[in-house]
């Protein structure tokens, strides 16, 4: 029953890997196949492999895939155009042939009655596997350890990058800054910090220059590009509002003060209003 639920799902997910354009989607579809496979292992009396499939394959290997994908760009997508002439058609034809031959061939075979693993798993699946692994397959098991160590070393060697130029020192950086200033007029010191006001102290509020205009370099360019930079003069609006209330229409609860709106309002009248 479980098989007939999972098998179409797996085939569909596997086919999806062929057709989706984004590698991330392919990875997710592969995760579906693997987890389904883990369930099939469970169904076939292999609880140890069920756990290993989930932990090692889905948990570690597939995550490694995603990790590398993040490194080289999630957005990377295959172009639809096939570069090798006839490759796609031939691959599909050959694949269909191969699959049908395999399926037809397998369906010709009579497997006989299933023995089942009840007897083998009598003392528990994990102890039984451990028994075989550490007796009959102990050398192969040890060999895999050598394989894994080699793989780890190999990955380190491959990932290692030689530094070809000496690391830039503090003095080099300072010299470069001054040279930039001399040649291009770039400001050698740190950028101005955002404005700090009585009621506002955030990275989206620019500092004010002596003539009352906002210093654009005091806020991040990203925020400027998004259009979420506050207008410094507008910050004074609610103070003016409070003053008006104090002066005129009586008491008003501070908690009911109207929210400031970034772009609304007129430019500030005076500097001392703000400070």
């Amino acid at each position, binding site marked *: 029953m479980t098989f007939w639920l999972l098998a179409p799902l797996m085939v569909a997910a596997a086919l999806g890997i062929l057709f989706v354009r984004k590698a991330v989607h392919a990875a997710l579809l592969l995760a579906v196949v693997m987890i389904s496979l883990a369930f099939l292992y469970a169904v076939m009396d292999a609880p140890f492999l069920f756990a290993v499939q989930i932990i090692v394959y889905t948990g570690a290997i597939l995550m490694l895939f995603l990790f590398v994908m993040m490194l080289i760009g999630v957005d990377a997508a295959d172009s639809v155009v096939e*570069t*090798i002439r006839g*490759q796609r058609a031939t*691959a599909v034809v*050959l694949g269909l042939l*191969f699959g049908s*031959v*395999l399926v037809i*061939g397998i369906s010709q075979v009579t497997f006989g009655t299933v023995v089942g693993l009840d007897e083998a798993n009598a003392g528990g699946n994990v102890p039984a596997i451990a028994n075989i692994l550490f007796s009959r397959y102990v050398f192969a098991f040890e060999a895999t350890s050598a394989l894994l160590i080699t793989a780890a070393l190999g990955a380190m060697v491959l990932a290692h990058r030689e530094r070809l130029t000496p690391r830039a020192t503090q003095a080099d950086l300072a010299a470069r800054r001054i040279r930039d200033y001399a040649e291009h007029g770039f400001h050698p010191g740190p950028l101005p910090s955002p404005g700090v006001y009585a009621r506002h102290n955030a990275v989206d509020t620019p500092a004010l220059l002596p003539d009352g205009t906002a210093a654009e370099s005091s806020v991040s360019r990203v925020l400027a590009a998004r259009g979420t930079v506050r207008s410094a003069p507008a910050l004074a609006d609610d103070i003016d509002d409070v003053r008006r209330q104090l002066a005129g229409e009586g008491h008003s609860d501070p908690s009911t003060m109207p929210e400031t709106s970034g772009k609304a309002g007129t430019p500030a009248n005076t500097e001392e209003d703000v400070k």
Partner: protein
Amino acid sequence: MAEGAHAPVVAPDTGAGGVFELLWLVIALPLLGAVLLLAVAPFLPGSARAAVDRHGHLLGTATAVASFGLSLVLFLSLLGRDAEERQVGQHLWTWFETGSLDVGMDLLYDQLAALFLLLITGVGSLIHVYAIGYMAHDPRRRRFFGYLNLFVAAMLTLILSANFVGLFLGWEGVGLASYLLIGFWQHKPSAAAAAKKAFVINRVGDIGLSLAIALMFATFGTTDFGDVSAHTGEASQGTLTALGLLLLLGACGKSAQVPLQAWLLDAMEGPTPVSALIHAATMVTAGVYLVVRSNFIFELAPVAQTAVVVVATVTLLWGAILGCAKDDIKKALAGSTMSQIGYMMLAAGLGPVGYPFAIFHLLTHGFFKANMFLGAGSVMHGMDDDVDMRHYGALNKAMPVTFLTFAMGYLAIIGFPGFSGFWSKDKIIESALAENLLVGVLAVLGAGITAFYMTRLMLLTFFTSRRWEEGVHPHESPRVMTVPLVVLAALSVLGGVLLLGDWIVTWLEPVTGHAEHHEPPLPAIAITLLITAVVALGVAAAWFLVGRREVPREAPREVSFATRAARADLYGDAINDALVVRPGTGLVGGLTLFDRVGVDGAVEGGSAAVGGLSSTMRRVQNGFVRSYALSLLGGALLVVLALLAVNLG
């Protein structure tokens, strides 16, 4: 051609002590001279080297003379032994031993070798002395004498070796020395080309000799004269004929017999002492020696013997005709040499009847031809190295000693009664007439032509009108050159004493075998008269055609076809060119073309095909890992299908 005759077996006595222990020294002395002059001298420090350059020729001459003295002592010792014990052997060391082939450094000193030893070291010594004067102004005289010594050592090795492999060593050694000496004035392109030509044509003959040696080893398992001569009766007729023909090919190359005659006239590019020693007196007669030494093979191979006779007859006429047309005094003499060697070969081809006379003529020819070559050198010496006889004339007054000695040689070669050549040539023609009438008649004809061209040479050089130019002052050569001339002239006159009481025939009989004399068609005295008459005819013809006319300084252009052919060496070079060189060039060109188009084409085409296929196939390696994975999936599919096919099918 003595059918069924049995050649004597060579069985040297290796235990002969006494002076025969020093046999090796005959070779070692000139070899030492050659090593000192050629290999050691160049590495001496400056002053010592200069001294060797100044006095090296004395060392070279001394070794040759010492060798001659030793040869003389050996000869006298051999004379002192009984006739049956006159084959002395000496085992020096085992040269090489491979499988069943065991070749020793063995020497054989018998009656034949003794005569050759005397000729080579004697004439060689005289020519060394002569060359002291002739080469006095040559800056490379030390090297010249080193080469001469090398030649003498190699020639003695050839003569003294007791097996065919050692003979081959000497054979190649004299070939090398001949090459070096013909090309001694290598700054002249004609000399370098002549040396190359002689070397290449000699290689053709050497192939024959080396094949003969290989065949001998295959047949008898040995190349020792003694063992081979003891077993020739066991070999088949075909093998013996092949052996004889191959040996004849070798002899043709070395002795400038038709068809390998073309190199000898060009070899006259060498210094005149070289022409006298190597290309007249000694080396070119090595072919005759080879045939006589291999008598135990030729005796049993009548076909090969006939071939020898044919080659010899053709050559003696060929050389004589060349001699008639040449204006270059040395080339005329070279043609004469070729012709005279033809006589020797003819005698050697006649079998045991002729062998002694072949050697006899070889000796007398060695004397008078060396005499005449040295005389020609003396004339050239006085005429500022001009070799054209048309520029000579009336030199008998200017060079009396040269003239007189040359005249002795002249009389000897034409066979003037009483002179050495008379006896030797007369005997050969007599034997030829007895064996085969046609050959004999041709030999008589050759004697007539010989008389003609030698008389022509004599007249052009020493008589008729004076034709040399104003600046030339003919003068007699120094003593060091004339004394050897006088000695050789005396030998030319007196060489005939060897025939007294048939001494040389008896002397050589243990080597060459006893001969059944056939009766000549005419009595011997009639033959002698006939020959003398023909010779007189030749002399008279020369007198009327040359001596009584005005001789132009330039050779006339308007001449008969025969003269033109003779001037062009009877088209020997053209024949070689047409028969060998051009087909060879064509064959090599064809092979080159086949190699370039066929072989290279296949190889390069194969590589290009593989390369093209690869450059197409490599497109599969497109660098995309997903393509590779696709192939992997395809492969997996195939494997699965195969598994299913096997398991379910």
